[in-house]
Structures are given as C-alpha cells and as structure tokens.
C-alpha cells in the first residue's frame, strides 16, 4: 500500500495540507460526517475532518469541558489549545452529539484565554435529528446559510456548476472506495483493516482529486495482488468515532482481520451517492441527512440493525466488535441493542467501552479481544 495513505492518516498537518496551504489556499475543519465536504471543496477550500489523534494529555480539554464528557472532543480541544490546528482557517461545529456540540463553546472560550487558537471562521451548523420533508427543508436552508457565510468570509463564490463538479468528484471517490471494500471483504482479503482505515481516513485530510488518483493507483495494485490474509478471524468494527489505526491494529493482531466497519471515520462516508441531477444543494441535504447511519438519528434503530446484518453477511464476518468511547451514550446504548439482536441472529459480538486517545488500555483490550477470538474459534470447531 502507498505509504501516503498511512502518513496522511497518522499526522494532522500532513504534506498534502501543507502543500495546499503553501499554494495560498484555505483549510476548513469540521467535526462530524454530516457536513457536506463537497460544498467547501467547490469553494476552493480543503475540507478537513478535525480529529483528536495524537493528543497525549487532557489538561486543556479538562479545563473547559466538565468531567463527564467523551474524551474525543476533549482531545480535539487539547490539540487546538496546543496550536496543532493552527493551520485551520475555519471550523464548523455540529450537534453530532451533546459532547461534540459543546466543542463550540469550549473552543471559543479557550480562544479567549489562549490567543490564536480559534479560527477566524467559526460556524455552528444545525443538523436535524430526523429525516422528513420539513427537516430536509431546514437542512437545505442550513447548507445555504453555510454557503453564504463561507462565500462572505473567504471572498469566494460557489456556483451550481462548481458544486456539481465537486459532487461528481466525491461520488467518484465513493465508487472507488466501494470497489476498495471488495478487496477487504474478499475470501482472502488483500488488505488489512488497519491499512483500510488509513486509506479511508486519508480522504478526510487531503484534496479530493489527489485522493482519487491515489485510490486509482491503489486499486490497480490490489487488482494485481493476491489476498494474503488467509485463515484469519473476520471481524466487523462498529460504534463510536474511531480514527485511530492503532486500535484496529491492536484488534487484528496476528489472528484477525477487520473486513468491514460502520464508523463515521470509516465506510459510512461512501455508503451512498449524492444525486448528480437536479438542485445540488437539495441533493447534498438529502444524502447527508438520510444516509448517515448514526444513532443521533433517533428512532431509526431497526434500519441500522438491518444495515449491519446485511453488511455482516456481505463481508462474511465471524464476529462484530461493538465499541464505544466512555460517556458516548448514543453508541454505547445502541451497542447494547445490537449485541442482543446480532447474537440472536447468530453473529457473535464483543462489546467494549474505552477511552479515546493513546491506547492506555492496550492490555485490557487485547485480553478481551483474544478471549473473543477464542470464543469464535470454539464456535467454529463445534459447528
């Protein structure tokens, strides 16, 4: 695999971001998969998914957030406070969940105390929690509000044609990622879950046209290679935001391979396409509101369960790891339901709660994963 993917996945201000900035162009960070990247890209701005990767302490995060809060936004704030997002020209905060929406106030207030850490463009993007004609209407207006603010602040203009062009490019990357999924889910996967997550993550940190080229090259390589990951236990990774390739590496070890996921930093991005006909804003609103399989969309559990079972079937998984970051009640509780219903459907599950950030719990997690693999192994033997 091209090392560019991994490098982009494990560094914040990577070469691609630096090159983009050196060309005098702007970068806007966003915190949630409900923000339509296409809009920023059409404005000539690099959409950059803000992450917490690399935070080694929480001194700043804990100063502003309360104690009972998910460690992901705390890690993001920590990095912002340390100046590691200084390359951002803007940030978009969404009510993805309560912890994440409070990043708005915490980042702003930290910006009053620590000079220079708050991007000049700072936008609260109101995303509805359900899909209906009136929520789509709201979301269209919200995207238009974002568009107007981006245009005003950065002195750019986003035409419908530019937007359609961006939609086509992003859809193309989704097509390629779907093909890429085929190499993950094959009988003998050609790529491990660790590298696969890096490939997907890289797309959130680099220019989409470069990303498409890199994906095409990768697919060519994969087509010529043989699946090497034989006889491994096939797992699917589900749950809270996870952008740490080391977590997947820990899970996979020498005996398992993560062949599928349902993570907002993972394959949720290419789960569907934006309609390329008709009004582009409406198309973005419909796709981003309807096709993001996140428990923040309340009352849609049955649909998400069906989607997971279908995914597990397609990838022929031996088991599912349901993980959530502590204090993530949305994923944590839904994982409880998934565990009940997937086990009922004959799919073994491991439910783990963890902290976001450096793998301080490596031993405990490793032991639980090993025990899970044992369980799956015994199940196979007795089958």
């Amino acid at each position, binding site marked *: 695999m091209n090392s560019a993917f991994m490098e982009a996945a494990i560094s914040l201000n990577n070469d691609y971001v630096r090159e983009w900035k050196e060309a005098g162009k702007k970068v806007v960070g966003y915190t949630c998969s409900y923000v339509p990247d296409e809009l920023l890209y059409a404005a000539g701005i690099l959409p950059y998914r803000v992450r917490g990767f690399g935070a080694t302490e929480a001194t700043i995060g804990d100063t*502003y957030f309360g104690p009972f809060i998910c460690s992901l936004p705390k890690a993001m704030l920590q990095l912002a406070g340390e100046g590691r997002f200084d390359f951002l020209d803007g940030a978009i905060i969404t009510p993805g969940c309560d912890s994440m929406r409070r990043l708005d106030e915490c980042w702003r207030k930290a910006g009053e105390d620590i000079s220079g850490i708050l991007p000049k463009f700072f936008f609260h993007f109101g995303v509805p929690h359900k899909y209906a004609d*009136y929520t789509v209407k709201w979301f269209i207006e919200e995207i238009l509000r974002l568009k107007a603010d981006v245009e005003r602040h950065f002195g750019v203009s986003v035409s419908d044609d530019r937007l359609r062009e961006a939609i086509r490019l992003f859809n193309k990357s989704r097509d390629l990622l779907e093909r890429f999924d085929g190499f993950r889910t094959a009988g003998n996967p050609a790529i491990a879950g660790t590298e696969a997550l890096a490939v997907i993550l890289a797309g959130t940190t680099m220019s989409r046209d470069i990303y498409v080229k890199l994906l095409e090259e990768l697919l060519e390589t994969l087509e010529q290679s043989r699946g090497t990951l034989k006889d491994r236990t096939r797992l699917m990774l589900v749950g809270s935001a996870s952008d740490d390739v080391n977590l997947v590496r820990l899970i996979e070890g020498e005996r398992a391979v993560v062949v599928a996921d349902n993570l907002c930093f993972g394959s949720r991005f290419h789960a569907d396409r934006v309609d390329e006909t008709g009004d582009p804003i409406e198309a973005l609103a419909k796709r981003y509101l309807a096709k993001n399989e996140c428990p923040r969309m*309340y009352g849609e559990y049955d649909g998400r369960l069906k989607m997971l079972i279908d995914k597990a079937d397609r990838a022929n998984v031996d088991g599912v790891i349901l993980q959530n970051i502590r204090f993530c009640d949305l994923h944590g509780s839904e994982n409880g339901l998934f565990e009940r219903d997937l086990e009922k459907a004959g799919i073994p599950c491991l439910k783990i709660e963890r902290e976001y950030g450096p793998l301080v719990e490596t031993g405990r997690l490793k032991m639980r994963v090993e025990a899970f693999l044992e369980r799956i192994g015994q199940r196979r033997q007795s089958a």
Partner: protein
Amino acid sequence: MRPELKEYKFDSMLLSTFTAAAKLRNGSEKEYRTMLKYIPYFNGTVTAVLDTGEPGQLFIECISKYLENYITAREKGFHNAITTFCFSPGILYAMDVYPICLEVLSVAQTFAYRRGTAEFLDFCNEVGYTETSCSSQRGTLGAFLAGVGADVDMVLTDTPGVCDTNANAFAFAAAYLKVPFFSLDMPPVLSEARSDEYHNSDFRALIAFIEKHTGRKLDIDRLRTVLREIERQEELVAELEDLARMVPNPLPVSFNLMVYATRFLFSGMKECTAVLESMLRVASDNASRGASGLSGSVEKMRAFFCYIDHYTNSLRLWDFLDRNGICYQGNILSRSWSNMAPHVKEYRTEAAAYSFDYGDLDAMIRTMALHNSRMPMIKSIRGPYDAPDMWLQDTLSLAKMYSADCIIYNGTPGCRNTWGMVKLFARDTEKAGFPTFIMYGDAFDDRVESWEASQDRLEEFLRVRRLLV
C-alpha cells in the same frame, strides 16, 4: 434486581403509596404524627408537602390520580405513552393519551423509598443501556424494561437537539420494548421564523403519529379546552412568580417543586389548575401579612438553582434550605415562557416567548407547538449556552430579577449537555457578580455522592463565600 421487586408492578406499588399518603391527614393530628413513624424514609417528603396545607394535599392526590390514569388507561379504552418532563402533556390529554413521565416517576420513587430507583437504574445497565446515561430517565426506565410497569402503547420525546441522553433513553426504550416512537426535534436557534415553522411542522407530524396509533382524530373542542386551561395555569404561575419577587418571599420552599411537578403531570387539566390556585391562595395570604414562606419565618438569603434540584433522601435539599433560612428562588424547571410571564415582560423577550391564539385549528396547533418548544430545558439549553435567549441570558436575568444571592448548579453526571459547558457557564455567572456553586452529586442517585457529602460541600460554599453568616 431482587426477585421481590418483580413480584408487583412498580407503578401500582407507587400508586398505593401515594394514595395512602393522600389519606394521612384524614385522621387526627396525633394519628398523623404516629403514622409518620411507620414511613421513616417517606416522612420527610410527606411533612414538607402536607404541612403546606391544602396545596400539599391536592398535590399528593394529583400524583395518585396521575398514576391511576396511566395504569388503567388501556382497560378504559384509552392509550398511554412514555414521555419526558419537558414534553407538555396538553396535546396528549386532548387526544386521550395518558402520559407516563419517566423523570417524575423517578422523583416519586426517590421520595418514597429508601432504595430510590437504584435497582431499576442498574437493571438498565444489565440489558445494555449505558451506566453513564442520565439517572432521571434511567431510574424508571429500568422498571419498564424489566416488565414491572404498565404496558405501554408508544414512546414520545422532544429532546433531540437539546439533550442526547434524554432522547436516547426514549429511543432505547422504544427499540427495546418494540413500541412506536416519535421525537420532536429542536433546532439550535429559538427565535427565528424558520424555527417556529420547523416546530409547527414537527408538531403536526406528532399529531398525525398519535392519530395513527390511537385511531382517534384530534378534536378541536378538546384542544381548545386544554389550551384555555394552560393559559389559566400560565396566569396563575405568573402571579406566583410575581409574588416570589417580594422580600420576604411568601412562597414556602416546596412550592417551586409543586409548581413544576404539577405542570409536568397535568398541564392543561383541571387538576393542575386546582393545585396552582391553592398555592396562590396560601402565597397571597402570606404576602398580605408580609410573612415569609420559610417555616422559620426569617429569610437569610436567596438561592437560584440554574438547573434542577436534588431529589434523593426524602426532600433533604428542601429541608436544608428551609432550616437555614435560604429562600428558594426557583430553577430552570419552574419557569414558564408564555408572553405573560413576569420575566418575559421585565426583559422584553416576547420574541422568545409564546402566546395563545384560538383563531382556528391551525392557530391552536401552532400555539401548542410553540408552547412545547418553550418548555423548561427545551427552551434554554439548545444551541450554544451564551447565544441570545439561551441558558446564560435566562439564568442571569432570573437571578437578578428574583434578587438571588447565589446561583447553584445541580444535575446528574449523565447530563452531557450541561456538563459540556457548565464550567464556562459558572465562570460567566461569577463574572456577572453571582457566587456560583457546581454540585457534583446526582439528583436521582445517592450512590454517586451521598446527600451528606453534597450538603457538606454546599455548606462550605455558603460559608467560604460568606453568604450565610
């Protein structure tokens, strides 16, 4: 969960408890005092409420009636719905759906039983619901998940966009119990025409949902009757709130709880109006005599609770306040946001309030939608806390208007939406001149921090800040 707890329906047990409590005063004073010895974990609540006289008696009867209503709804040909405190039940009563408010039932259990809701809290975790979720819903939710509550027809909430952990509790309940679910969604801004339109469309979808699952059409006359009752209740609450501005405050400490609890139970119904009218009579009488509502008659200081109260251990918080001459100047739950509310008039924030319009069905639905979108917490804790008409502005306005000497935050560790920024919020209220205290306990679960520890910390705050000399 202990097997004996599964022997009886928890809500039927609670009904028996409150029905018996409502009869305590039927005998002589001596009989009453003797009876209190037999309810050692409930007598604090009983005395705090019943000692207020008629309002307390009506309030206890209200709780009893509420429980009976939803428990027997199905056998009477009606429906019931699990719902939340900040969901105005008016529309449900107008459509013959009896609400089952999880948080109020959690409070009722913490009032009545030494165990509070501990075993139901833990049962939730056993079936996969996170232990970090808010205890206010979890305490009663566990009973329904364990099958020791009444059978449920549907689950309704209105907190997406305001409180994840609340909304998530209801979504989980619906998925677990496999019953229909509907949520009203709250956009991050309040006072914009497009937000009003959103609330209105969402509320219409709610009505369509209820009609579908009950097979009953919304009756315009019933809706009008309920709305008129809500309007009357808003007038009464406005008068009570006006009286609370007086020095000394003529409202007994427990009135605040009774105001909001009664509205959560019976908004739009005569039962609520009766309690409010009775409270107003007592408060007006005290006011006419210049008497404080505190049992010791001496008002030493005034505290404004910016979020919720602490309910465990048989109303020990109220006892603490009353005993120390601390006047309770309200919390976020007790405020009404109709355009006739005193604070709305005082600060000219009518644009963020709602008004009553009986013009036609559309106008009434719009009124209900806006009423619901201005319920406690729903109104103030959406969007950034420091945005216009949100939590900071509301708190500072109310604390100033009601002459509070300090601001106290109490919640639950499950409250992601406030713990996400309460430190910043407290920094701002301190800057505005209000000594502010953050309580770290759990309003519904004494195991997180004992009331004694919470009280120690609160006393320390009052002492160090020289508020209670």
